[in-house]
């Protein structure tokens, strides 16, 4: 006022509520003293709560850091006085929700013993980083009300040069006088803090302190202190809410902070004067932020005044000193009447942002009358300092039209309450905006969470699909491997299944051919014989041929004997074989000699031609018959007869062989082994002959019993299963007629057959590396077991 005033701008809207500041300005700042207990919330600022670095029971000293900043946007907490930490627990904190938060509780000891601390004499010798770090370590947060950590605000970026540093001494809200009294009493400290800030920020243009013109004493004190520093004190007309950061910037510089932007975007940094004082104390005295000026006022207090309060002091402690009349107080407000919130309890502590505790009477601050319908008068739009359309936003808020609210720049609303103040219908407009802001923030968070959930869901789905695909690929690979193996088996004709069958067919064909060929050969031979005997070979010639044969046989016999002798001398393994060969050759020789003798006899006596022809004819007939069907030609009776004969002769031969053997053993002949082999062979032949006979007998009886079965077998010879069934039936029927021994013998024979077949299969399987081999081996073992038990029974 006294100074030629510089140009100031006006803001849109605004209101002029009753100031009510004089009550608390009647007396100077008073130290509130040390309360018996101090409650320090860990979150006294915007950002992450501090984390305690002391534990319960520790003694702490005044100014000692008890909780450290956690993260960049955070601030540490210090002990305001000496005492003992008694609890780190959830306590009621000053918050509009009336909820509790984590607090460190200290029982004070009254000694107020300082921790070691020291300030810097010349802050200009310190670097910017060093200074900011000191501000951070001092736990300073914006003291105007928001509580934004000052160190963060001061960390200006080099790419955004600051033109103007503004200190906010506006204090536009009614009742509050904390800044006013600070200016009056501690102007020097404010200016000192401003100097530090100026050194830190290095504003290229100017440093301003904006003060409303309702604080002439404060302005005067500041001007006095600021003389010669170049810091300009700018008074401007009182209007609520000029003290808002953006509003003050507009008033002092005419520039508007863009929506959603920061003052630094337009080259301005703004700090509260209380914060400037705290910075001065932190840098120059080394004292962290442990106390602040708080106004206790309202008609329910008989001695309203400003206190220098240790942080953490319960509100009750201050009210007690101010002549608080509880019965008169309608509600306790933390902050001013415009933007403050109701405290539910007087036990809550003063924190870094608590500039005022208002204890009004009912007459002074009556509860708002019930809201009535909006009459669309438009007064709220006139009062809005941010030029918003509160009325529109009210409707949108009620209809939850979040998009339209955002279009109407809801988030530029500073919640000053001017609109509610002027509303003739008493609609609590700001409450709607606050609720809608929270809803929109919640919706945004939900959206982010939904996105993340979706991402995680999709990632999980993808992972599961991939796992499934991998499994599928493995399965496919296994299948392919199996196929490849099969293909390899196909290219190798012996091992594949089809080829096995093919091979089996071929083998059987070959067998048939073999079976046919001897017959064919026999026919050919017989024919040749007949022809030869009829046309060419005279008895003389035959005699000659036979003699030649005998001679060669004799030669072979001699050589065989020689070989045998040699082998015996050398003790070779082949002795037995040689011995057999010698015997065979001897047999042949005898047979030839016999034939020769017969021939000579015949040729001399009988009419040779016819005699020679007839046997040949018979042979041809036999051979032809054989070829036509090995089994069909022989009647059952004939076969039985033949087999019985065979058995009989073989038995005779066996007896002879055994006799020979015993004689040889007695004489200690060299041919003992050979005789033994011969006897054995004969024995085996006899056995097989007996077996054959037994089988034949069984068949015969089976045939006799089940003629239908036989006919069915013949009819359905194409159906192997049917045939097998019939065979089995026949076998069972036959068995029924057989003696126990015969049955066993038969089963032994069939078991042996099966074992032989299975072994064939097994070897085939092993060759082809088939995994059936094991199964086959198993079945062989089983069959052998059965065989053994059958043999046991028989034996």
């Amino acid at each position: 006022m006294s100074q030629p005033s510089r140009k100031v701008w006006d803001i849109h809207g605004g209101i002029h509520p009753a100031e009510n500041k004089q009550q608390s300005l009647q007396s100077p700042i008073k130290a509130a003293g040390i309360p018996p207990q101090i409650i320090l919330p860990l979150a006294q600022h915007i950002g992450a709560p501090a984390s305690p670095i002391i534990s319960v029971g520790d003694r702490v000293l005044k100014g000692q850091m008890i909780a450290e900043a956690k993260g960049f946007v955070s601030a540490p907490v210090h002990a305001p006085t000496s005492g003992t930490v008694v609890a780190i627990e959830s306590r009621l904190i000053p918050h509009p929700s009336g909820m509790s938060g984590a607090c460190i509780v200290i029982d004070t000891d009254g000694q107020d013993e300082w921790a070691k601390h020291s300030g810097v004499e010349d802050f200009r010798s310190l670097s910017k980083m060093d200074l900011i770090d000191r501000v951070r370590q001092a736990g300073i947060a914006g003291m105007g009300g928001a509580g934004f950590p000052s160190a963060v605000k001061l960390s200006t970026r080099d790419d955004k040069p600051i033109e103007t540093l503004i200190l906010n001494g506006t204090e536009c809200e009614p009742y509050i006088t904390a800044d006013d009294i600070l200016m009056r009493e501690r102007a020097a400290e404010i200016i000192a803090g401003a100097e530090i800030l100026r050194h830190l920020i290095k504003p290229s243009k100017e440093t301003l302190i904006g003060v409303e013109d309702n604080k002439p004493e404060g302005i005067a004190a500041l001007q006095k202190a600021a003389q010669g520093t170049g810091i300009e004190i700018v008074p401007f007309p009182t209007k609520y809410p000029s003290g808002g950061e953006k509003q003050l910037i507009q008033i002092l510089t005419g520039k508007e902070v863009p929506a959603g932007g920061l003052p630094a975007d337009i080259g301005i940094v703004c700090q509260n004067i209380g914060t400037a004082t705290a910075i001065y104390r932190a840098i120059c005295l080394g004292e962290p932020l442990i106390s602040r000026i708080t106004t206790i006022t309202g008609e329910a207090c008989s001695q309203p005044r400003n206190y220098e309060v240790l942080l953490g002091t319960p509100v009750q402690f201050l009210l007690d000193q101010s002549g608080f009349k509880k019965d008169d107080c309608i509600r306790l407000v933390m902050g001013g009447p415009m933007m403050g919130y109701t405290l539910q309890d007087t036990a809550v502590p003063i924190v870094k942002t608590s500039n005022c505790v208002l204890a009004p009477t009912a007459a002074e601050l009556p509860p708002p009358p019930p809201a009535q319908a909006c009459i669309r008068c438009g007064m709220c739009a006139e009062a809005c300092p941010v030029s918003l359309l509160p009325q529109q936003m009210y409707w949108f808020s009620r209809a939850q039209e979040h998009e339209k609210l955002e279009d109407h720049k809801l988030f530029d609303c500073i919640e000053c309450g001017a609109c509610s103040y002027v509303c003739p219908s008493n609609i609590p407009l700001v409450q709607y905006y606050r609720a809608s802001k929270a809803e929109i923030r919640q919706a945004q968070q939900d959206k982010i969470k939904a996105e993340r959930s979706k991402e995680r869901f999709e990632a999980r789905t993808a992972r599961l699909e991939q796992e499934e695909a991998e499994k599928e690929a493995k399965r496919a690979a296994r299948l392919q491997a199996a196929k490849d193996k099969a293909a390899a088996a196909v290219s190798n004709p012996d091992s594949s299944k089809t080829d096995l069958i093919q091979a089996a067919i071929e083998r059987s064909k070959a067998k048939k051919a073999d079976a046919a060929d001897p017959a064919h050969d026999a026919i050919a031979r017989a024919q040749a014989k007949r022809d030869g005997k009829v046309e060419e070979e005279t008895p003389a010639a035959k005699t000659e041929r036979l003699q030649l044969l005998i001679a060669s046989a004799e030669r072979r016999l001699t050589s065989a004997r020689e070989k045998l002798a040699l082998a015996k001398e050398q003790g070779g393994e082949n002795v037995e074989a040689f011995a057999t060969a010698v015997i065979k050759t001897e047999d042949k020789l005898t047979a030839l000699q016999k034939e020769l003798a017969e021939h000579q006899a015949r040729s001399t006596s009988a009419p040779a031609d016819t005699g020679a022809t007839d046997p040949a004819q018979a042979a041809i007939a036999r051979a032809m018959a054989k070829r036509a069907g090995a089994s069909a030609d022989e009647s059952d009776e004939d076969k039985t007869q033949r087999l019985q004969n065979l058995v009989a002769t073989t038995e005779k031969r066996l007896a002879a062989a055994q006799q020979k053997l015993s004689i040889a053993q007695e004489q200690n002949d060299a041919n003992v082994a050979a005789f033994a082999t011969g006897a054995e062979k004969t024995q085996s032949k006899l056995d097989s002959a007996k077996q054959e006979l037994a089988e034949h007998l069984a068949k015969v009886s089976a045939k006799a019993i089940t003629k239908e079965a036989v006919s069915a077998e013949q009819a359905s010879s194409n159906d192997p299963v049917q045939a097998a069934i019939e065979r089995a039936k026949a076998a069972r029927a036959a068995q029924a007629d057989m003696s126990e021994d015969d049955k066993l013998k038969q089963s032994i024979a069939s078991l042996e057959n099966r074992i032989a077949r299975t072994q064939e299969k097994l070897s085939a399987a092993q060759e082809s590396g088939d995994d059936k081999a094991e199964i086959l081996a198993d079945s062989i073992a089983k069959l052998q077991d059965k065989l053994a038990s059958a043999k046991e029974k028989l034996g």
Partner: protein
Amino acid sequence: MIELIAQNPFIASLLALVSLGVVFGALLGFAAVKFKTEGDPIADQVEALLPQTQCGQCGYPGCRPYAQAIADGDDINKCPPGGEATIAALADLLGVEAKPLDAVEESVPSVAYIREDECIGCTKCIQACPVDAILGSAKHMHTVIASECTGCDLCVEPCPVDCIEMRPIETSLQTWAWDKPKPPEDLIATDRSGASA
């Protein structure tokens, strides 16, 4: 030829129209191929409005299938976690009438909580969780990553020892918000006199 056309305005106009038709048809055909929209844009938009809890309470195995179903004409009122807000948003997007929620009540936002003492480590809940928000391994205690839990309660059913419960998310200092005031129209005369007294 040109003479013929010039002398027969009918043929001339016919030719002109046909050629125009061919040209624009080709243009449209080209545009249809060139600017073909991938996927189903409506299903995408619907999906963006769904809460992505993947809870399956709508009867579809996840939010995307339900979004697709809505795009194909299914009802928009089958999402209990989304509640009335989602129905309103969907109605707005699709230009249809908002219907009341097809469920007993909106599900309260909650997170699964495993009573860890009782957990036997069977991993059944892990397999059930659509967003991989449960941590643990066989025969070891499991726990829910609360920040990732969508509250779909799909893990509650499979638990053989019933050690999972859904706990409503509690309001913290960070999540607390001002309540919306009662609309003035809802206040009755006695309230007014009582309040102003």
